[in-house]
C-alpha cells in the first residue's frame, strides 16, 4: 500500500471504501494487459457500488483479453482534503495506481448534479480538464449513463459520450482505441473514426451557434460525424451479460443486496419521466433464465436479500411465477425478495404474500399528483380507487406504514390539485381505519413532495419549472391543509432541484459555469452538505448567463433543443403529441394495451415486449 495512503487512512471516515481488495474484485497480471481502463463513478463508493450498470460494464470489460478495468470513486470531503495535502493523486482501487497513466478514463454518470464531481476527479487525478488540452490519444476521457442524453453542459471536458446501453458499444470503442494506439493514429484521427460507431457522440465534432436571444440556432456536424446519434440498446435481454459473479463490498453500501434485473424499459409512459422514455423499448428477460441467474448470484454473493429490479417491477408478467420458482431456494438460505418500486394499481395479494416475509414495515407508492385530472394530464394512469384498494390490501395484510410520493409544480397544476394531495392522504388514513388487521400498532402515513424538474427527451422538455417562490407557496398551502393526524409531511429542499432544472436542459455555454462553480468549491454537488446555491449563482453571474433562462423559460415547439443531435429512439413528434395531450388531460394507454407508436421499437426491428 502507498505510504501516503497508509498515513491518511486512520484519519478519514470509513477507510474501507478507499482500499479495494473486495471479494470478486478483478486483479490482473500487468504483463498480460495492454489496455488499462479507470472506470470512474462521480459519487461515493457507497452510491457507485450500488449501481448495476457499473457492475455489468466492469464485468464485460474485464472479460476482454488484455483489458484491465478498475474502479474509481469520488472521495468524501475529508479524504479529498487529505489526498490533496499529501499530494496523492486519484488512484484506482484494484491496483492502487494513479489513473492519469491509464489509457481510458471512463465515467458512468446517471445524474446531472454529478457533473462537477467529474471535473473534481479529473483534477484530483492530475488530468487536464478540457478535451482540447489533452492532445494525446491517452488518457482518453469518455462518459456514459443516463445523464449523457444531454451532455452538452460537459461537452468541453469529455472526448466521447456513449449514448444508451454500453455493453456492446464500450467493447467496440476499446477495440478501436487499441487499434489506434497500435497503429499510431492521432487523437483527431481516432475521434473521427469513433464518431462512425453507432451510439458514439463526439462533442468536439459539432459546431453550435446561438441566436441573439440565447437559444440554439444551429448544430453542425464536422468531419463526417452523423447529424443525429441514436442510442444503442441490447436487443435481446437473454443474450445480455448478467453479473452473477460480482464484487461483494466489505463495507456497507446503499443497495447492500443482490440485484436481479428483470427487464429494461417501462410500459407506462408517464410524461415527466426521463427514464420512462430513454430506456424504451421494453425488453424482457425470460423467467427461466432469471431463476438461474438469481440462484447463481445468491450462491456466489452470500447475500440474504435480493431485489427484483426494473423501472416498474410489478409490470413484469411472470413476476408471481418467478417468486414461486425461487421460493424454496430462498427459504433454505434465509433469502428475502424485495421490490424497488410498486405500482399502486397492480399490487396484488398474491405478490404481497411472496415479498419480505415477516418484514411488513412499510410500502411506498408514488401517485405523483393529488387529483385525477392532474394524474391524467401527466399520464400517471392510476386512479385513487386503485391506490386505496392497494392500501386496504396492505393494511389488511399487516402493513402499518405507507409512504406516498408526489410532485409539486407539474404542468397545469392548480391549488385544487395541491389540496388534493391532502385529501388523498386523509382517504388513505380512512382506508387504514376500515381495513387494518391490527389497529393497536397505529399507522404511519408519510407524504413527501418534490419540486418538479422538467427533463430533456420527455414530453415536458418544453415546460418551465415553476419559480421558487411559487413552489414554496404551494408547499405552505399544502402544509397548512395537511390536517389528518398520523400523516407526516416532508418536502424536498428546493435549491438542488432548481440547479438540476438548469443543468438538465443546459447547453454548451454551461461548461464555463460548471467549471467556475467547481473552482468555487462545488466538488460533490449531489450531496446537500457540499452544495451551495450561492456559489452556483455567483458562477452564472461571472459567466454572464441567466439560470432562469434554462429553468423557468417556456420553449416553443420549433425551438432547436441543445440536445437535438441525440436521439433516444422516441420521436420528437411523439413527445410533442404527448405534451399536447397533457393540456387536454387526455391519457395515453400503456404500451401493453396497445402500441402508441413512439418510435423506439424501430431500434428493435420488431414489436417491443410491452
Amino acid at each position, binding site marked *: 500500500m502507498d505510504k501516503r495512503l497508509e498515513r491518511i487512512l486512520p484519519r478519514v471516515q*470509513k477507510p474501507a471504501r478507499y482500499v479495494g481488495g*473486495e*471479494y470478486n474484485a478483478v486483479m490482473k497480471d500487468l504483463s498480460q494487459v495492454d489496455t488499462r481502463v479507470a472506470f470512474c463513478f462521480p459519487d461515493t463508493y457507497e452510491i457507485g457500488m450500488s449501481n448495476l450498470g457499473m457492475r455489468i460494464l466492469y464485468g464485460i470489460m474485464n472479460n476482454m483479453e488484455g483489458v484491465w478495468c478498475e474502479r474509481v470513486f469520488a472521495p468524501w470531503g475529508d479524504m479529498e482534503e487529505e489526498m490533496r495535502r499529501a499530494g496523492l493523486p486519484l488512484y484506482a482501487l484494484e491496483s492502487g495506481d494513479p489513473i492519469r497513466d491509464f489509457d481510458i478514463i471512463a465515467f458512468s454518470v446517471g445524474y446531472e448534479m454529478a457533473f462537477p464531481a467529474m471535473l473534481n476527479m479529473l483534477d484530483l487525478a492530475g488530468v487536464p480538464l478540457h478535451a482540447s488540452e489533452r492532445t494525446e490519444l491517452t488518457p482518453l476521457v469518455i462518459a456514459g449513463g443516463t445523464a449523457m442524453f444531454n451532455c452538452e453542459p460537459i461537452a468541453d471536458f469529455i472526448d466521447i459520450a456513449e449514448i444508451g446501453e454500453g455493453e456492446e458499444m464500450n467493447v467496440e470503442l476499446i477495440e478501436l482505441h487499441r487499434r489506434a494506439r497500435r497503429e499510431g493514429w492521432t487523437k483527431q484521427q481516432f475521434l473521427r473514426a469513433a464518431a462512425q460507431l453507432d451510439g458514439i457522440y463526439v462533442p468536439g465534432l459539432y459546431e453550435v451557434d446561438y441566436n441573439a436571444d440565447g437559444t440554439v440556432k444551429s448544430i453542425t456536424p464536422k468531419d463526417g460525424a452523423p447529424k443525429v446519434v441514436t442510442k444503442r440498446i441490447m436487443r435481446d435481454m437473454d443474450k445480455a451479460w448478467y453479473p452473477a459473479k460480482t464484487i*461483494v463490498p466489505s463495507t456497507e453500501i446503499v443497495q447492500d443486496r443482490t440485484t436481479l434485473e428483470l427487464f429494461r424499459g417501462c410500459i407506462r409512459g408517464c410524461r415527466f419521466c426521463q427514464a420512462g422514455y430513454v430506456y424504451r423499448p421494453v425488453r424482457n428477460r425470460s423467467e427461466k433464465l432469471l431463476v438461474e441467474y438469481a440462484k447463481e448470484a445468491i450462491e456466489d*454473493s452470500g447475500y440474504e436479500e435480493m431485489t427484483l429490479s426494473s423501472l416498474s417491477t410489478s409490470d413484469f408478467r411472470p413476476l408471481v411465477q418467478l417468486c414461486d420458482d425461487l421460493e424454496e431456494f430462498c427459504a433454505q438460505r434465509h433469502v428475502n425478495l424485495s421490490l424497488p418500486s410498486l405500482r399502486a394499481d397492480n399490487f396484488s395479494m398474491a405478490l404481497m404474500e411472496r415479498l419480505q416475509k415477516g418484514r411488513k414495515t412499510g410500502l411506498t407508492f408514488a401517485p405523483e399528483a393529488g387529483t385525477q385530472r392532474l394524474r391524467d394530464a401527466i399520464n400517471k394512469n392510476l386512479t385513487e380507487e386503485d391506490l386505496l384498494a392497494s392500501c386496504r390490501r396492505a393494511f389488511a395484510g399487516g402493513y402499518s406504514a405507507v409512504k406516498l410520493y408526489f410532485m409539486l409544480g407539474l404542468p397545469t397544476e392548480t391549488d385544487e390539485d395541491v389540496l388534493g394531495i391532502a385529501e388523498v392522504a386523509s382517504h388513505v388514513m380512512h382506508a387504514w381505519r376500515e381495513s387494518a388487521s391490527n389497529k393497536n400498532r397505529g399507522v404511519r402515513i408519510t407524504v413527501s413532495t418534490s419540486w418538479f424538474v422538467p427533463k430533456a427527451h420527455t414530453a415536458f422538455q418544453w415546460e418551465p419549472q415553476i419559480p421558487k417562490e411559487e413552489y414554496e407557496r404551494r408547499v405552505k398551502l399544502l402544509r397548512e391543509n395537511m390536517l389528518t393526524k398520523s400523516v407526516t409531511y416532508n418536502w424536498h429542499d428546493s435549491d438542488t432541484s432548481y440547479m438540476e432544472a438548469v443543468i438538465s436542459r443546459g447547453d454548451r455555454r454551461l461548461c464555463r459555469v460548471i467549471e467556475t462553480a467547481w473552482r468555487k468549491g462545488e466538488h460533490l454537488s449531489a450531496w446537500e452538505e457540499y452544495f451551495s446555491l450561492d456559489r452556483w449563482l455567483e458562477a452564472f453571474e461571472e459567466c454572464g448567463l441567466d439560470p432562469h433562462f434554462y429553468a423557468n423559460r417556456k420553449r416553443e415547439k420549433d425551438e432547436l433543443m441543445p440536445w437535438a443531435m441525440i436521439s433516444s429512439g422516441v420521436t420528437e413528434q411523439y413527445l410533442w403529441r404527448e405534451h399536447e395531450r397533457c393540456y387536454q388531460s387526455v391519457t395515453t394507454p400503456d404500451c401493453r394495451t396497445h402500441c402508441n407508436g413512439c418510435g423506439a421499437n424501430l431500434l428493435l426491428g420488431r414489436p417491443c415486449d410491452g
Partner: protein
Amino acid sequence: MAKLRLLFTKEAQASYISHLDTMRTFQRVFPRAELHLKHSNGFHPHPIISIVLPLPVGQSSDCELLDFETVEETDGAGIAEKLNTGLPAGLRVRECYPVTRPVREFTFLRARLELLYDNGVPAGTADALRALFARETLMIEKRTKHKELAQIDIAPLIREMTLTEQDGSILADAVVAAQNPGLNPAYLAQAIERELPSLKPDFVRVRRTEIYDTEGNVFR
C-alpha cells in the same frame, strides 16, 4: 449442530474493515462456502456469529477469533480452506475447530507496535521509552461510552514490554490486558505523545500477534 471457532488473520486492506463490516463480511462468506449457519429466531432472523474481541480499525492481527454455530454436524475439518476461497484480500482463516474454552478465559494479548520516525530515531529514545513504560502510573485520556473524557491509568494493564531499535523505527513488543478492562495498544503511543512529546513517532503500526489465558498460555 456444532459450535465452532475460527482463528483468522486480518491485515493489509482488510485492517480497514470495521468490526460491524467484518461481521457482515463473514455472514456472507459462510453461505458462499455452502455452510448453513444457525439463525436467530424472531422477526429479523440473522446468522448467529460473534467476534471475540473487536479489533480497532487500522490495526492488523494474526489471531482474531470468531464463534458461530452451524446447522450441520461438523468438527470444522476442511472449513478453513473453503472459507478462504471467498474472503476479501487481507482476511484469511488459519484454523476452524470446535469451541472448547469459554471466551472469558481470554485475558491477555500480545501486540507489536512499529513506531516510525521519518527523520531517524532520536538518540536515547529506546531508553526513554523503557523508563516511561516502567513507571508506577501512566495516565492517558480516553473517551468513555458517554463521550466524556476520562483519565485512565494504563500502567497496571501492561504486563510485558520489550523495546528494540531498528533502522528508522522502534519496535515495541507488548503484552497487555485484553478485557475487563482491556487496553487498546494504540494508547501506548498516546502515552508517549502525552508524556514525551518530543519523542512522538510520526506514525504507528499496530499488530496483534498472540492471545493468552490468565496463566499466560496461548488461548484458542
